[in-house]
Every structure is written in C-alpha cells, then in structure tokens.
C-alpha cells in the first residue's frame, strides 16, 4: 500500500459525531408543510374515485391532475407515473399526497380519504406473469454440441428473496418554491442529476428553473438511486401546486414495504460435464421486476453477465428476463443483480463437485478464469485474476481446508458445524459503454485567489467516504494540506454532471478525472489568481467495444475480486445457525484510505451475510409485504456475527487513481455462496436451493432428512 492509503480522520466525522449534521428531516422552519402519500391498498385495480373530505384551511390534496409536466418519472424507460394514472399496479403506489402544517392532521385527513377501486387480477408469481419487461440472451460457443457430448447433465433451480437496503435514514425529500418560478429540491439522495432530469420533466420546467442539492444522507446502498427521483417529483408537484415548501419523509414501515429492493430471482441452471469438467451452462435467469421497469434493465444485464461466475465455461447460453408482477418495483441494491446469479452458480458448482466426489474448492479452482481468458460476453480479462493467492491468504487465517475435512466427518449431537467458501467478482463501473455514451462525466476544480481548491462534482457521500477520498486525491496531486481542499454536498446549480454515485464508479472514474484535473492545475498554478480546470471522461482505449444488442465485448474495464469463507454451527434443536467466523479477502485495487475501504468491506460483507441468512421478506398472494418492521424484517445486530475479519489483496488498475478500482458493491456480492456451502455441510451434504436460509428452513430440512 502506498502513501495515499494511510487513513485520515474523515472529513465529515465531527459534524456527524456531534449530531450537528443536517439531514433532510432536520430543517426546523415553521413554514414547511408535511406531505404524506396516499398509498394504494390494492395490488392491481382500476381507480374509480378518490373521495377527499373537505379540507381545513391550509391543507391540500394533490394528485396526477396537479402534475404540470409529464406524469412519468424519468429513470430508464419512464413508465412509472409520478401519481397513479387510471390504475394502480402495486400496493403502495402513490395515488396522491396530502400536505399541511400539522403532521397529525395530515394523517387524520389521509385516513379519512376513501378510495374506490375496481379489482383487477393480481399477479405476484413470476412464473405466472405473461409480461417480460426485458428479455436478453448471451451466447458463446456451441452449447448444443457440448450438451450432446456431455458425460452428465445437471439441472437445478435456485431462488433468492427480496432484500431491503435498510439505510438507517428512511427516504426523504423536500421541495421549495423560489423566486422567479424556480424550484429547489434537496434531500437524502445518491444522484442529484437523476433527480434534476426527472423533476424538470415532471414539472415541465427548463433546466435553469430547477436545482437539486444533497443533504447529509443516512445510507443508500442503491436504495437512493432511483427512489429520490420519484419522491422528488411528488414533493416537487406538491410544492408547485401549493406554493409552499413541502417535505415528505417516509416512516419505517412505509419505507420497508413500498420502496424498491433487491430483485427476487428464480434461476435455472443446466450444466454439461465432460471428463470432470464443466463444458457448458444453459442458464435461465428470471428476476421479479415488480410493477414498473425502473432500473430492472440494467440490474438484469449485470446479473446475467455474472451468471457463469468466475469460471471459464467455453459454451454458454444465458437468457435473462425481468418479469412484471404486481409487487413493489424492484430496484438497485449494492451488487446490482450479481448477488442473485453468483449464489446460484456457486451452489451449482458445489453440488456438481460433491456429486463427482471432488472437493468443491479444487473443482472451482480447476475452472477459474485467468488473465487473458474470455468473459461471458466474449470480452477479455485484461488484468491478473488474484483468486488463487486470495484463497491461500484466507486459508492461512481461518484454516478453511483443515476445517472442511474435519466437519466432513459424521457429526452427531445437538450442534453441527460446517464451513464454506465462495469466490466472485464485481465488474467495476457501468456495464458496457454507459460511461462513454450516457454519463459523459465532467469534473471541475476551482481555485480561488487565496489558494483554496474546491472540488466540483455531483457525486455524493452517503457514508461511504467520498468526502474524504476525493479531497485526499486532489490534495496529494497538488501537494497541499487536506484542509485547503473543499468538497461540499453537491448542488446542481454549482457542480457539473460527473455522473451518479452508483456502480462502484466514483473513486475509479471520477476520482481519476479529479486526479487528472489536479495534475493540470498543478502545472498551470498561478499564485493569487482564480483558476478553473475542467476534465472530461475518456474511454479506456484497451477495451473491446461492447454491444448491448448481442451482449458481446468488454462489459467492464476491470474487475474487483473476493473470496469469502463462512464457518457456522447449527443448533439442531432451534434451527439457529450461528456464524462462528466470517472471513473475507477483497481486491479493490489500491485503497485510497485503508480504514474507509475496510469499513466498506466489513459493512457490505455483513449485509451479504444477512441476505443469505436472516433477511426474509416476501409478498403474499394479495401482493402485500408483511415484513415491514424491524420486528419482522431482521437485519444483523452487533451480536450476530461477532467474528468477521477482512483482509485486502491489491491488484492495481492502471486507469484508476493510484491503482484503485470499484469498491463499494463488491463486499455485498459474495457471502451467500459460502454461507450455503457451510449450511449444507453442517446438514450432512444435503443440496439446498434457496436463500435466505433461515432457522425455520434448517428445521424443515432436518425434518425432511428424518423422514427419509
């Protein structure tokens, strides 16, 4: 690790630590109206009538009739309405909003509104829906030939559930009418320019009449990539209609039930094996997209590109569909489609290895991709694949191989142990040529006469540390103290569009642009002068062009890698799996700040363990999610995984700042494969097929084993 990696006190530490940081809920002016959404109680119905009682003075009801511009939220396909049209498509869909000065009165009015629905058929099962929002295919080699020549063919189905981002600060946005017909929106968000594009369109206002700023943001994890655009349009419409400041902050139950979460999936793997080697995979990936498309296209693309895992499979057919159902629209969650397919491929590889009588680790390493190999999309792994070394590093700290042998012996008694290992990548940055064709990032550095340097970018710190990372890069290049670099929460009136804070792109792409800008500023530095430096994104030249039409080319410039090991003990009386140790080795390139990167890895790793084990959420037949509180939707506490260890392995990426590459999402991708392999071993080598695998599932599995 170089000098840049040494940790500093985070730039936002003090304001957050003392409680002084201002989140959107913390503005206390007396002229802010509270907005509360009238949510649909039906998963699919015609809206016949909304009977609003007579409103007291100062209270308002707004709905689609108040949308001055286009009643469609700009995300990708723009099919989600700001306020419901003639039908509602999921429980929770916004029909309208009640606004007023007193929150309890607003709630009282909401409860007095009567909505008359006419029921329409409700579809919650992806296998029963006849609408595919997106349908993609990846092909490579000749699978027909490979299946014909196979010694053995395996076919298994894997299912994964919802996972909610569960940022501690719920969704919240506020809109303020300003002089000359301008509208100002601010709140808890990841992507100011996404919100700007959506709000200008919904309000029918030109770009210069709207500006968006980020407040302190209490976590995102993907959950504040698309939803702030939707909520932003709603409070924006309300503010324009009422002429007042309007703020809407979700309650926890509202947030858990009605905001986008990870796509549940149903993945069928058909695998051909010849001479002890996987020769082909025919994979059918089905994601539950929910009621509107929102981000499903891009989540699905990433999901299917990962469907063969880190393995070199010469013949591939991968079909991926995002299916419409009458459940809450699924959206972005750290990992973005990868966690669903990675757990599936890791499990199928385990099961085949066991069937062939080979140790799963040995079997997986035999298939591991290496530098120069071709990817699922016939692109190339341009850089070193460090998985073999990472496995050895982890084995040294947790004795994986020894324990794996030990726990393979027959176990009796109440407590039984297992250990599992998974290996994954995360493609760094946007899929394909998104950076070049859509994002076109621009960054600026502004130097004032007194020598202070301000970073002007639209990227946001939602806890992951950008407010420290970016100034560190600029300070290093300019050889200035960190205190001389300013990086405020972005406001679109002042910052250029350096792209959204998603896809593990910020440090790698925007950080590199800032690095280039700082180099230029240093070269052109003039004491006592005001200076402005601007840099534009340049697509790396070594890339094989990617085409979305046939899914061919380099989907990502480079990859971050992980190896995870989970060791656990199952209580056969209660079913409870206790994680004894969670060990993660992560390669995200050069860490720009060691503590920050380790903090990202630890936090993401624990979320990923939660996804595998305890975070159970489902919609019932009526389309309602009942796990809508912290007593029903359980996320890990400080006691659940007491022994979680992270180590870093560094393969530098030459196009990232000091060798850094994508970091944020990687740790949230890998735990389920390791977790399930450990559970399977503790349960004496049963083949399991879904996550989360809860204590109840353990009991069911034990019961079934007894029956046999």
């Amino acid at each position, binding site marked *: 690790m170089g000098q840049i990696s040494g940790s500093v006190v985070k730039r936002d530490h003090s304001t957050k630590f003392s409680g002084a940081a201002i989140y959107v809920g913390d503005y206390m002016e007396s002229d802010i109206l509270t907005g509360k959404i009238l949510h649909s109680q039906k998963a699919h119905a015609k809206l016949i009538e909304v009977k609003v009682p007579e409103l007291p003075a100062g209270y308002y009801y707004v709905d689609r009739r108040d949308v001055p511009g286009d009643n469609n939220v700009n995300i990708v396909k723009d099919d989600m309405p700001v306020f419901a049209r003639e039908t509602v498509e999921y429980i929770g869909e916004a029909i309208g909003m009640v606004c007023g000065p007193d929150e309890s009165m607003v709630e009282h009015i909401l409860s007095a509104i009567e909505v008359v629905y006419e029921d329409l058929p409700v579809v919650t099962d992806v296998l029963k829906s006849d609408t595919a929002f997106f349908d993609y295919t990846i092909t490579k080699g000749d699978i027909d030939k490979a299946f014909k020549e196979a010694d053995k063919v395996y076919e298994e189905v894997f299912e994964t559930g919802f996972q909610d981002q569960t940022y501690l600060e719920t969704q919240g946005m506020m809109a303020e009418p300003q002089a000359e017909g301008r509208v100002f929106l601010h709140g808890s968000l990841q992507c100011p320019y996404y919100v700007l594009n959506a709000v200008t369109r919904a309000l029918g206002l030109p770009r210069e009449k709207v500006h968006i700023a980020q407040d302190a943001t209490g*976590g995102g994890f993907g959950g504040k990539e698309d939803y702030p655009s939707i909520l932003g349009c709603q409070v924006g419409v309300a503010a324009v209609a009422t002429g007042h400041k309007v703020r809407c902050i979700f309650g926890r139950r509202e947030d858990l039930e009605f905001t986008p979460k990870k796509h549940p999936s149903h993945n069928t793997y058909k695998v051909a094996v010849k001479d002890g080697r996987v020769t082909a995979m025919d994979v059918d990936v089905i994601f539950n997209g929910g009621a509107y498309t929102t981000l499903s296209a891009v989540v699905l693309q990433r999901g299917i590109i990962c469907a063969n895992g880190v393995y070199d499979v010469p013949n591939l057919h991968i079909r991926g569909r995002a299916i419409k159902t009458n459940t809450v629209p699924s959206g972005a969650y750290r990992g973005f489609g990868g966690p669903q397919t990675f757990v599936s491929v890791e499990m199928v590889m385990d099961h085949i290895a066991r069937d062939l009588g080979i140790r799963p680790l040995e079997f997986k390493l035999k298939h591991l991709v290496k530098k120069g190999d071709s990817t699922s999309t016939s692109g190339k792994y341009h850089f070193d694949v460090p998985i073999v070394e990472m496995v050895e590093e982890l084995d040294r700290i947790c004795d994986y191989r020894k324990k794996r042998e030990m726990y393979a012996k027959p176990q009796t008694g109440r407590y039984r142990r297992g250990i599992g290992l998974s290996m994954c990548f995360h493609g760094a940055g946007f899929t394909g040529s998104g950076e070049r064709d859509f994002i076109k990032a621009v960054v600026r550095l502004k130097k004032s006469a007194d020598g202070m340097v301000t970073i002007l970018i639209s990227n946001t710190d939602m806890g992951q540390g950008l407010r420290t990372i970016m100034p560190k890069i600029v300070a290093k290049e300019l050889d200035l103290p960190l205190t001389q670099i300013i990086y405020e929460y972005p406001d679109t009136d002042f910052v250029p569009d350096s792209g959204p804070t998603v896809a593990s792109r910020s440090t790698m792409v925007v950080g590199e642009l800032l690095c280039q800008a700082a180099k230029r500023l240093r070269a052109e530095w003039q004491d006592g002068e005001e200076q402005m430096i601007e840099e534009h994104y340049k697509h790396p030249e070594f890339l094989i062009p990617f085409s979305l039409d046939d899914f061919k080319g380099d989907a990502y410039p480079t990859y971050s890698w992980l190896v995870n090991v989970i060791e656990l003990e199952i209580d056969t009386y209660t079913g409870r799996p206790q994680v004894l140790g969670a060990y993660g080795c992560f390669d995200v390139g050069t860490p720009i700040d060691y503590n920050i990167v380790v903090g990202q890895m630890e936090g993401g790793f624990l979320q990923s363990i939660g996804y595998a084990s305890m975070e159970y959420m489902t919609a019932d037949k009526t389309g309602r999610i009942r796990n809508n509180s912290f007593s029903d939707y359980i996320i890990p506490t*400080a006691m659940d995984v007491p022994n979680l260890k992270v180590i870093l392995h560094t393969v530098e990426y030459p196009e990232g700042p000091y060798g850094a590459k994508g970091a944020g999402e990687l740790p949230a991708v890998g735990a389920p494969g390791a977790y399930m392999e450990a559970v399977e071993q503790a349960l004496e080598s049963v083949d399991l097929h879904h996550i989360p695998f809860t204590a109840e599932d353990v009991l069911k599995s034990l019961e079934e084993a007894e029956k046999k």
Partner: protein
Amino acid sequence: MSDAIRFTLNGEETLYNGNPADRLLDVLRETYKLTGVKCGCKEGECGACSVLMDGELINSCMVALGRCEGSNIVTIEGFSKTEHFQVIDKAYAAVSAVQCGYCIPGMVLATEALLVKTPHPTEEEIRTGLSGNLCRCTGYNAIVKAVQIAAKEGDGLW
C-alpha cells in the same frame, strides 16, 4: 403552570407545558430543536433516537413526556460538552467508525451507557451493549474497536 412536566434537559431545568402523552422523541426534536436525536423507526427497534434518562439508555420514541417528570435527560447535544464525549469522539475518529452517521448519536450514548456500567468491557460485553442500536453501514467492527479504544484511553474516567 403548576401541572407542567418538570425535568432536566442537557443540564437545564425545563418545564414542558404540552400534552404528557407526547412522545419524547418528537418533543426533543420539534419543541427543543435537538435534531441530533434521530428517528429511525419510531417503534423502539433501531436505537437511532437513543438518549440517556437518569443515565440509562432509552429509546426516546417509546417514552411519553409524562414519564419524564423529575428525570434527567441527556441528548447528544448535551453529552457533546463532556469529557467522556471527547474520549469517545477521538476513538471513533481514529478508526473511521462513522459512515452515514445516522445511527451515531444513539451509538455514542450507547457507548457512554455501557462504559458507565462496565468501564473495561470485553468484546462480548461491547457487542451486547450496542445490540439495541442498529447500524447498516459498518458491520459494527470499527464501532466495537472504537469502544475498546475509548475504554483504554479513558481509563479512570468511567
């Protein structure tokens, strides 16, 4: 008014004239503008609204004002003026234990409540002590480490 609720808030004698059924969390934020007290669930599950009531860590969303009569309430704003705070602050900063920050005011007060009872806690005691405060960002490791540092650096203070 004689039937006002009398309590000490961050060291100041305070009279609350509102409804005794009002939620402490709402009153702290809206009446006294103590916005360091965060609302994460309003159901007593997440700990973001933790404050100290007579030295005990409580979820302010689960306490009615009437229950505060005669008590001593300390929020992050009051606690940040103490020597204990300085030690805990430095410890969290040293290991970058603050990410999104939303759980932090509650976490800081949970740290204080723990160290008052157990000045030299084991790791298990720390994890138990913080288990009523959810954090989604850190995986808790850095926070546990920070509490260990605070206990060591603040030796004798608690």
